[in-house]
């Protein structure tokens, strides 16, 4: 992998991730203090990368923004920001105004924190996150928004609600199926009688956000994202967190419920009963497919490309639910070797499936070379080839899938060729949808 550049980066910057997070908080109006094209840039990005999801009430090109110019770069941008904040409050309602600072104000040294402290009021609470693009990627921006919520928005709680849990680890928009996946987690946790609070998306509400410290636990469904914030939450409010892999499909959901049940000290009888009943329902739906699924020879060798959550969760799903062979799993995140090891060890410790081969890469030529080494054309008459192939990856792997002769389904960022609304793959019902979409992808010409 190159140290000098990223090829077609599979995420946006800190500001992009933070805007997607803050803009999808309930009753929250984000305000960008940034250059003039950042909002447009994110709108265009989501068009081609996030399942066509561009606008929200205060997203896309609706977001208030200072659009700072040379004048502000030379003389400072605080006057312009002050004016923008005051006018935003006049024009747009919100229970929270969330200032996000981009590259320019941070390089020129605008003291946005002081201005926000001056202008915030009980009536119009104003918070900020410092999320210049050069500070990190979309995942970093998501984490920074969570940290601001913990520091400034979530109120300490005198008591804990035993059945209430906060769910973290799915960054809005950067995880294209985030809305459906959060709902999937709500459904899963509901099987154990738990109530999920997840801050983001159409079904979140502001009072639940501010009351988050009354939860008994935080559940982080990622080997990577949301962990820093969960640590901070634990330190500040004394609420412990449970880390689990993202559960796509039935087998992973079984493990998820078992793990959460243990951590929350739910009687194992209750957990086992929930798992058994969910499995019965799941297979009642799946059963009619068994005939044709078997007879049309559906088993596939799989190439998976994606960020850490989905790359590993898809590996689990294809191996354990469908009984396919994950030949090559490519994780695209830029991680230091120790973080790479941590992520993989964690996934293994949680009982996840290890693919035949796993690499960290995000450059098309490297991915193609690894794939072609596995799927070489047969040199001899009798050849243990790994056909047929299924490519579960991003839209950028379409041409590779074609070269390999495999069917392709866009499941990881960037997704340009699917419209994503409520679809998600978490949980048992999510596993049914993933089965439907996968099979539909390879029988499209049937």
């Amino acid at each position: 992998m190159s140290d000098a550049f990223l090829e077609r980066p599979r995420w946006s910057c800190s500001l992009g991730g933070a805007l997607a997070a803050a803009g999808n908080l309930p009753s929250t109006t984000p305000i960008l203090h940034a250059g003039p094209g950042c909002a447009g840039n994110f709108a265009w990005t989501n068009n081609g990368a996030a399942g066509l999801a561009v606008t929200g009430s205060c997203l896309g090109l609706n977001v208030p923004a200072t659009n700072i110019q040379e004048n502000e770069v030379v003389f400072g941008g605080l006057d312009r920001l002050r004016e923008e904040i005051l006018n935003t409050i006049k024009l747009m309602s919100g229970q929270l105004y969330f200032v996000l600072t981009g590259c320019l104000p941070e390089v020129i040294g605008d003291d946005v924190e002081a201005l926000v402290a001056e202008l915030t009021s009980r009536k119009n609470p104003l918070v900020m996150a410092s999320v210049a693009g050069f500070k990190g990627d979309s995942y970093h921006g998501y984490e920074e928004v969570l940290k601001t919520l913990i520091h400034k928005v979530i109120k300490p709680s005198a008591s804990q609600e035993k059945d209430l849990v906060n769910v973290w680890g799915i960054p809005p928009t950067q995880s294209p199926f985030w809305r459906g996946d959060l709902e999937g987690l709500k459904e899963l946790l509901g099987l154990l009688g738990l109530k999920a609070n997840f801050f983001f998306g159409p079904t979140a509400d502001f009072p639940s956000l501010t009351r988050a410290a009354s939860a008994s636990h935080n559940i982080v469904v990622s080997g990577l994202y949301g962990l820093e914030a969960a640590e901070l939450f634990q330190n500040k409010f004394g609420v412990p967190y449970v880390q689990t892999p993202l559960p796509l499909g039935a087998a992973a959901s079984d493990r998820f419920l078992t793990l959460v049940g243990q951590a929350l000290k739910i009687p194992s009888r209750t957990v086992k009963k929930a798992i058994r009943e969910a499995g019965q329902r799941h297979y009642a739906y799946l059963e009619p497919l068994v005939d044709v699924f078997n007879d049309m020879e559906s088993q596939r060798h799989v190439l998976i490309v994606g960020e850490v959550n989905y790359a590993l969760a898809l590996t689990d799903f294809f191996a354990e639910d469908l009984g396919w062979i994950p030949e090559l799993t490519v994780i695209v995140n830029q991680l230091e070797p120790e973080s790479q090891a941590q992520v993989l060890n964690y996934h293994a410790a949680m009982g996840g499936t290890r693919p035949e081969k796993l690499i960290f890469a995000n450059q098309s030529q490297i991915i193609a070379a690894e794939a072609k080494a596995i799927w070489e054309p047969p040199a001899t008459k009798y050849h243990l080839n790994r056909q047929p192939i299924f490519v579960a990856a991003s839209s950028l792997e379409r041409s590779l899938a074609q070269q390999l002769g495999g069917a392709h389904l866009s499941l990881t960022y960037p997704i340009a060729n699917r419209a994503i609304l409520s679809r998600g793959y978490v949980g048992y019902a999510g596993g049914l949808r993933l089965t439907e979409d996968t099979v539909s992808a390879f029988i499209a010409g049937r």
Partner: protein
Amino acid sequence: MSYLDSPVPPIRERRHPETALAHGAARCGHGPQRSTCAVLAQSDRSFTQGSICPLLPALGIMTSLPETVVLLHGAVGCGSCANGNNVNVRAGRAARGDPGQDAMWLSTALNEINVINGGEEKLAAAIVEADATYHPKVILTVSGCLPGVIGDDLDGVAAKTQSQVKAKILPVHCEGFKSRFMATAYDVVYHALGRHLLPEKAAGPTDPVAVNVMNVGSMGLTDEKELAKLLGELGLVANFFPVFARPESFAQATQARISISVCPTHDDYFLRHLEEKYHVPYIIRHMPIGIKNTSQWLLDLGQELGLTKPTQALVKKEEAELAKALADLKPFFAGKTAFISAGEYRSLATALLLRELGFKILGIRSFHFDSFAEVELAKLDQGEDFIFNVANVQPFEEANLLKRLKPDIFLGHWHGNSTAARLGIPAQVIYNSGYAYLGYQGAYDLARRLYRRLKNPAFYARVGQFATLPYRASWYQEEPFSHIRETQQ
């Protein structure tokens, strides 16, 4: 001295100081009036929403170029919009017989250390590695905001690195904060292409039938075919630049008989250069959107080339054929009201077309306004009154206007239609490359799409019942242009 002799192109503000960013008022004069630009140029807003910087349209052109790597020099998110541009690139390449090909863009993904120590070394290393990895003909090194602030010297890096690579390195100065007008995008891209892809002297003798037709990112192959067909009927061959043009083909532009702009605010930078350096004359008036506009565009070309008679005959034939086809649709449109928002020229020219179709124009929003479009506004002033608003998107003004004006249909730029849709107003995109907008065929196709949109606007009616906009109810009671103010630059 030509602008192209200097490594860094001037911004629009400097080259066209009359360019306006913020304006809103009723147009109610009939006939010519005093220069609109003089009144408008010194305004901005006390409240703004996120907008589009020159990098976005520039990337639209750059990502389309075959055998080219776009190397974004900036933070990792700067230019992540290339994901959106790539949708057009794939469609455009597929239409041109090369399906399934993604654009190639890279980012130097500047981090905190680079911001402190400078990003030049990283950029140089990226150029060398990109050349070895992708073997492109051209590497466009594109500066986002960050290098502009930390002072990276793009041209210096290119000069130092050029000898180490096979590809031509083209520095593109696209720092978003340096210009308020996205039209600067066209100049910075033309600047890079003009400095590096054109020969020292004309590549060969003038080709008597070759016409440079300057295309824009919003034109698809469909529109190019229409213009090529019309020029073909006059015995002319249209060569399209710069969108989707092969790097080596630019030299051909120096041998053309004449150049013609499709969107006058888009092309003067390059066309002046072709004339000054290679003596290729140019026409930069009118946009071939609308029936009369298309005819005028063709007649201007015909006149310059001594083809007036055959052009008149062509125009007459085309207009008659189109009039016959539109006769069925016009009664359906008669008296319906429309509101238009898009790039400067496209919004104004489309308004003229809508009037030709029988619509009443209630309002027009242009992303900017400059002297190129005075002629277009003057044409519109011949008709009924309308609201004229200059805004780099700014949907809050639009929402306020639409609530008041309640048009039957809204026509807007790519990503500029959702405010109308959320208010329940049927919306028609007028910038989506691949659909026909230009020429006589474009006029008919837009009419056809408007017909089907108005025939069943159910989607918008339902969206309008439930979708939300972020504004307080009180905003709709205020004057829509109350945040526009005079400034002293």
